[in-house]
């Protein structure tokens, strides 16, 4: 054992209030486990946004379709990194696939993940891009030609019948994809919600709350990325699309807020054994991250802004003003959802299961459990997305514009 670690734990001692079981001083799931549900939430939410186009035929949000799929893929690729990095024995992680314990929610991770990546996301992206990749490969020269040929798995058929098949396949996969996305994130909620030892986590609502907060964070991030990337590539933001997507986001936030409110009221009304310590937890340890960041800034304030846009005509008339207000709301919502994950994961470990005291969490800066590494994990999907957008451009109109300018 490193003397460093002992010293760190010793430093925490004075900050412990009341009585905690002696093994409880160390918060076992740190910032990496906060990042994990945040990232998978974005995957699920982005996919749900994409399915609006394919399954529910919401034509206005078509410009977000491919971006949403690629965002989901970029984040999904990073999701297991935070989990594996956190393990005491990362090199044994394959054991989850070889000798999974069927009663363990966590053991199912590998299978849910593989299903979602292999059966849903990759296949959907492939069918959607197949024709384009063939066309690009015909027109291009050099390395990109080969990349597109390989990614298209050397298919060359662009006949009417083949394209009709692509479309049908896309529809079927999206229909399978929606419950899969629900499964992916609902299951992450279940990992926490099924722990009966921990009253902060143990709730049947947990998977549903996770799901709706996932939809909120996914939709919000895709809109945010669109509003940043599209103008950077020389396009003009389609406000009809953003308005429509923001409208969906608005309703998702309302449902998310209502669910969390129901959970809150239920706990207060039932007032079980743990209510006193949970009250102390919220008022002392989580006041800033829960009351201020998650509820006020992450939900109520953006809801206020979005309601104002819906109610007052002045906002609807000025695109620039609306863009600014949307942008602010999206950032606040992202912060709010990250705080939600923080409050669930870290909050759930800060009170003792003796219900008599609170411990504290001191995040490191460097190191594998540190802030820097976590920020790196959050930035990595954006880098992957940039590469994906380079190889698989999301907007044909920008390509044509670029080609016309080059000519």
């Amino acid at each position, binding site marked *: 054992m490193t003397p460093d670690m002992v010293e760190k734990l010793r430093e925490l001692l004075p900050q412990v209030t009341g009585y905690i079981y*002696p*093994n409880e001083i160390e918060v076992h799931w740190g910032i990496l486990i906060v990042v994990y549900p945040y990232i998978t939430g974005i995957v699920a939410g982005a996919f749900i946004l994409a399915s609006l186009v394919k399954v529910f035929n919401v034509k206005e949000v078509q410009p977000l379709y491919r971006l949403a799929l690629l965002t989901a893929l970029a984040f999904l690729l990073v999701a297991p990194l935070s989990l594996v990095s956190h393990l005491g024995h990362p090199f044994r992680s394959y*054991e989850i696939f070889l000798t999974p*314990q069927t009663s*363990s929610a966590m053991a199912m991770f590998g299978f849910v993940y593989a299903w979602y990546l292999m059966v849903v996301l990759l296949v959907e992206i492939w069918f959607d891009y197949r024709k384009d990749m063939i066309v690009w490969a015909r027109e291009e020269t050099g390395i990109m030609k080969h990349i597109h040929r390989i990614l298209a798995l050397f298919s060359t058929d662009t006949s009417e019948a083949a394209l009709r098949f692509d479309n049908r396949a896309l529809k079927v996969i999206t229909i399978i994809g929606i419950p899969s996305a629900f499964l992916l994130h609902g299951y992450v909620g279940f990992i926490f919600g099924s722990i009966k*030892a921990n009253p902060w986590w143990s709730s049947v609502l947990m998977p549903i709350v996770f799901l709706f907060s996932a939809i909120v964070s996914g939709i919000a991030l895709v809109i945010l990325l669109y509003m940043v990337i599209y103008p950077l590539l020389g396009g003009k933001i389609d406000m009809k699309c953003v308005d429509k997507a923001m409208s969906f986001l608005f309703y998702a936030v309302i449902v998310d807020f209502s669910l969390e409110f129901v959970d809150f009221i239920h706990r207060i009304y039932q007032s079980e054994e743990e209510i006193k310590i949970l009250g102390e937890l919220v008022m002392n340890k989580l006041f800033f991250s829960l009351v201020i960041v998650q509820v006020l800034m992450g939900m109520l304030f953006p809801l206020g802004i979005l309601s104002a846009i819906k109610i007052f005509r002045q906002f609807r008339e000025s695109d620039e003003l609306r863009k600014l207000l949307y942008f602010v709301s999206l950032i606040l919502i992202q912060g709010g959802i990250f705080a939600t994950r923080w409050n669930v994961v870290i909050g759930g470990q800060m009170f003792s299961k003796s219900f008599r005291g609170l411990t504290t969490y001191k995040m490191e800066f460097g190191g594998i459990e540190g802030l820097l590494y976590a920020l790196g994990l959050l930035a990595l999907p954006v880098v992957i997305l940039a590469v994906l957008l380079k190889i698989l451009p999301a907007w044909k109109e920008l390509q044509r514009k670029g080609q016309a300018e080059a000519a």
Partner: protein
Amino acid sequence: MMDRRSFLKKILSFLAVSGAAMGGFLKAGSAGAQATEEHARKLWGFGVSSDKCIGCARCVIACKSENNVPKEPFFYRTWVERYMIPMEGEAVVTNIHMGLAPEAEAPSTKGILRSFFVPKLCNQCAHPPCVQVCPVGATFSTDDGVVLVNDKTCIGCRYCIQACPYGARYLHPKTHTADKCTFCYHRLNRDLLPACVEVCPTQARVIGDLHSPASPMTRFKRMNKIFVLKSNLNTEPKVLYAHIDGEVR
């Protein structure tokens, strides 16, 4: 070059030696199977008499040295809590070991109605949440009712630590795997008592076979009113408490 006679001699002696070794191995194997069978008929249980405990913490120290538990006050397979019930207000609870753990301010003795010690350890639940959640089956229940951790396959995800309602598990800082009380399973299998039971000067801790009418546990259950911790969670602990207070969680 080897002639035929010496070749046959060598073959014969090889067969004789390997045959004898094989026989011995099989015999040892069947003896092992017999021992396992005998243990499988048992169901280990543990009794704690709260009013016999004097809070000397010898059990804690013995456990730490027997099982290579780090000495620092953040890692315990067993620990002892002191409860002080005041005239008014909340019970004051502290971990008595070494005085290094967080000590709450003791109220003046005048205001205390009663005070008692409660030794804590893994409850070896019949329905262990830790076993249920372990993703790789590294934590498992033995046939004789003890929950163990295989540190060769534990991946260190700490899900079991989160799932344990009793705070009985910790992540061993050297092995990076989950660790907890095993009832000193290595000693039980050699017909020795667990270290904590062995050193307890007041016999506040007893261990025995819950199936055997002649075991100390049967006597413990006959002589005492029995409580288990957090019975509402349906974990069915095999650590039984006598004379504890409703305050104990």
